[in-house]
């Protein structure tokens, strides 16, 4: 695993939290600010469009009044035919915005004038000229300015047009139908028009400044571009041809809304050669001519201030996060630097250097507590180790003494085999494996009077030094008593008396003691509470001695021990053992048991004593499987070779 530091974890978690917090805050801020900007722009756009419309209407509205007044005047028939041109001239002279004006009559309205009669006054340079229009080549009855208001019986603003006669300026004509009374009936009699130059309109429109590249444009009722910063569009394109050229159906929809006199503020993605990108458009109709004005706000510029602030914010936040990381790093490092020293100290202490210098803590916080705990641990460990040293020394002394005791104990029992090379009638082999340094088991054998073989095996209650001392006492007593006595029961009884007296510690010993007459093979024995030995007759059959009825030695001073007798034949073997053999335990607490003993013996009936004991040891090892030995193991095999 990669090694990380505490400051890395803290910085990572704090940064993640801060970035999350920032993202949420920023999104909310961005959303609301954007909405606010859009709303402000919308209001601004509506205001701008209305303002521009008002400026245009300032010209168009009064211009509408002129033909309307003229029409009323004509209807009342105040004017004579001859006064029409002077009248029109005077109208022009007081209305500077009006380029020309016509009063066009229906065919044969004045019979003497024929089919056509249309007095016309117009500006030429600074002067006002006049003429009478209408002939075969100028059939005004079929012209829009005449025909449309006549048929629809309503005033009509013409589609703008370039006036070829008047210096190719953009013009529009406002026509109003007028009526007169003939035989008491009100009949349509003709059309009054004013021609308005739209040069001023282009000027007004070009004065509209929106952000960096925003602009205003004007569409006629047919969607023809009347004013636009891109001069190529003006009078050449309709919004619908531009939409088609750039394959933008949504622009066509916007155009339809515009020429239908609707108003709206909406987003639009334009991608014409002239302008592309996301835009916002506000459009509104002109009340007089039903043209439509559109103001365009480039989205990028609209939100430019927001984007600028965003960049600044981002820089500030990134810088802030770096600073925050640095400060956290510093703080955490300051706080945790003693920990590194503590870790070092702990390692040194573990190596045994208890007097290592702990880091100095000046604060009164958790670090101080850690310091106190460390310093306490350091002190206590020192004390503990000192005590441990003393204890270890004492223990080593005791262990050395115990080792010596064991050596002494082992030297007390015979351990040279074969013990009697000059007595061919008898062969013995024995082992004693103590569970602890010194044990409570014993075995012994010796020859009395040259032909009596005395042997004993026993097990002292308890273990360790007391048991070994008791064992030494028992062995010594057996030796001294059997100096004078050959009867096993007497030997055991005397031993019992001796031990029972002053047996303050209430220890006892199980003992099997036998005396074999080497001359005739008679074995007399007394079993004082010991495991029954096994007799192997003639290397063919093995039987266990009967269970004893006598209690272990050392319990009751006056206990009477009896003895039994057995005739041994040449080759008969006796296998003796202590309960360390039959009760050898494995890790599952299963005992080795008498049956196992008998089985091993049955498998080795003819084996010599050493081999039989080796086999028995192997059997025990296989059973316990390395489990710690809990009791002394003692075995002895005697062969009578009569």
């Amino acid at each position, binding site marked *: 695993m990669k090694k990380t530091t505490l400051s890395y974890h803290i910085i990572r978690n704090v940064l993640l939290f801060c970035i999350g917090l920032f993202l949420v805050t920023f999104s909310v801020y961005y959303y609301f600010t954007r909405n606010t900007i859009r709303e402000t722009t919308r209001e601004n756009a509506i205001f701008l469009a209305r303002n521009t419309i008002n400026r245009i209407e300032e010209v168009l509205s009064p211009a509408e009044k002129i033909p309307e007044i003229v029409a009323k005047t004509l209807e009342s028939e105040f004017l004579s035919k001859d006064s029409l041109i002077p009248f029109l001239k005077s109208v022009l002279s007081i209305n500077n915005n009006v380029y020309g004006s016509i009063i066009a009559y229906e065919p044969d309205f004045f019979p003497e004038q024929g089919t056509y009669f249309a007095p016309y006054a117009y500006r030429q340079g600074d002067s006002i000229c006049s003429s009478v229009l209408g002939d075969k080549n100028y059939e005004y009855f079929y012209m829009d300015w005449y*025909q*449309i208001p006549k048929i629809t019986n309503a005033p009509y603003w013409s589609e703008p047009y370039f006036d070829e006669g008047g210096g190719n300026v953009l013009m529009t004509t406002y026509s109003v139908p007028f009526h007169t009374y003939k035989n008491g009936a009100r009949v349509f009699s003709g059309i009054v028009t004013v021609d308005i130059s739209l040069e001023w309109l282009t000027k007004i429109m070009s004065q509209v400044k929106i952000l960096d590249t925003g602009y205003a444009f004007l569409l006629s009722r047919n969607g023809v571009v009347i004013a636009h910063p891109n001069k190529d569009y003006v009078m050449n394109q309709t919004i*619908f041809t531009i939409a088609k050229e750039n394959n933008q159906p949504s622009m066509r929809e916007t155009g339809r809304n515009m020429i239908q006199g609707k108003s709206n503020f909406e987003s639009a993605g334009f991608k014409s050669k002239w302008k592309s990108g996301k835009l916002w458009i506000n459009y509104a109709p002109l009340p007089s001519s039903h043209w439509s004005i559109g103001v365009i706000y480039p989205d990028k510029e609209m939100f430019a201030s927001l984007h600028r602030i965003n960049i600044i914010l981002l820089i500030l936040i990134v810088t802030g996060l770096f600073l925050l990381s640095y400060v956290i790093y510093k703080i955490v490092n300051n706080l945790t630097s003693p920990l590194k020293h503590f870790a070092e100290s702990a390692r040194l202490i573990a190596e045994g250097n208890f007097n290592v210098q702990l880091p100095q803590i000046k604060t009164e916080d958790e670090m101080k507590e850690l310091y106190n705990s460390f310093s306490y641990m350091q002190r206590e460990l020192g004390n503990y180790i000192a005590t441990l040293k003393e204890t270890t020394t004492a223990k080593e002394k005791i262990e050395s003494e115990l080792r010596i005791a064991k050596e002494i104990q082992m030297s007390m029992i015979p351990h040279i085999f074969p013990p009697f090379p000059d007595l061919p009638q008898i062969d013995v082999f024995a082992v004693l494996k103590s569970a602890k340094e010194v044990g409570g088991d014993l075995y012994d054998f010796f020859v009395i009077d040259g032909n009596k073989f005395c042997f004993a095996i026993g097990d002292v209650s308890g273990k360790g030094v007391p048991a070994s001392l008791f064992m030494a006492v028992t062995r010594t007593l057996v030796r001294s008593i059997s100096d004078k006595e050959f009867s096993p029961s007497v030997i055991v009884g005397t031993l019992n008396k001796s031990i029972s007296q002053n047996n303050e510690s209430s220890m006892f010993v199980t003992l099997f003691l036998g005396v074999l007459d080497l001359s005739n093979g008679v074995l007399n024995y007394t079993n004082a509470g010991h495991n029954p030995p096994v007799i192997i007759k003639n290397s063919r059959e093995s039987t266990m001695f009967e269970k004893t009825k006598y209690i272990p030695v050392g319990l009751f001073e006056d206990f009477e021990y009896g003895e039994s007798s057995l005739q041994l034949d040449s080759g008969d073997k006796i296998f003796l053992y202590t309960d360390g053999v039959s009760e050898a335990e494995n890790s599952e607490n299963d005992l080795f048991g008498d049956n196992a003993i008998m089985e091993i013996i049955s498998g080795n009936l003819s084996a010599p004593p050493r081999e039989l004991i080796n086999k028995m040891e192997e059997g025990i090892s296989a059973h316990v499987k390395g489990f710690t030995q809990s009791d002394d193991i003692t075995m002895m095999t005697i062969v009578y070779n009569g």
Partner: protein
Amino acid sequence: MKPFIKIPLILYFLLLLTTPVDAQISKITFAPQWIPQAQFAGYYAAQDMGFYKEAGIEVEIVHPSANIQATALLASGKADIISLFLVTGIAAKIQGLDVVNFGQISQHSAILFLTKKSRGIEKLEQLNGKKIGIWRSGFDEVPKALIKEKGYNVEWVPILSTVNLFMMDGIDAMTVMSYNEYDYIINCGVNEDELNVFPVSHYGYDVPEDGLYCLRSTYEKRGPELQKFLKATLKGWDYAAANKSIAIDMVLERMKQAHIPANSVHQAWMLDKILEMMDLSNKRAARGELLESDFLKTVKILNNSIKSKSNFTFTEFYKPLYK
């Protein structure tokens, strides 16, 4: 002299040397029947791509104005060749202008009756009793003949050239050219699905339109040149059909020079429709050929609509030069 002034000069002299100065090259003045637009893209292409020059003729294209019609240009000798609708050509001859047709370019009629769906006219017979706008300046014979044949009683409203009366709902229907006014109305924000159209061709009046005309005297004197002109013109149309955007640019250039409002969208539409009119796939005519059946059909229409009757035969009217 600066080196980059030298180079054009050298090139100029080289050009003078390599261009054969042909004293025999004959000049032809051609006048299409209307102001510059994609309806005449083939002629512009033949001129700009040098097809006329290749054929050994030098062609100047002049346009009529609102006041002077193509027939007047022909009559006054200001034009040697003009293009006219078949119906106009026959009418002119009936009225005494001794013209001959030496090539029929268009083979179909582009005339439609157009109404807004809002007027509720779903079938042709519903035009009965309605106000219909119609060109004041000609081309009115065919639609009028159809209405007359059907026996409908309609009020014809003469219109000079705009669609504004239609847009303002001053009339119920209007005769339009599929290549011109129809698209113009679409380009004024009316959607196609808001319109009903009744093409006269669907009612047995598929009368060919644009054809090439000259005075009979011109034909007799300059027949081979006229043939060259027709051949080069057809080549020009082939070029325009294959190179539409280049052809549109040629048209727009001429419209700009003539100070006519122009946009490529409308001109592209017009070129497509004009090329459709030249389609021969369901007609047994050669390119540039006028069928006698078409001539007779048109004469019949005219005899029903104007007072004077035709007193000439097909062969007197049509001089085939397409072979």
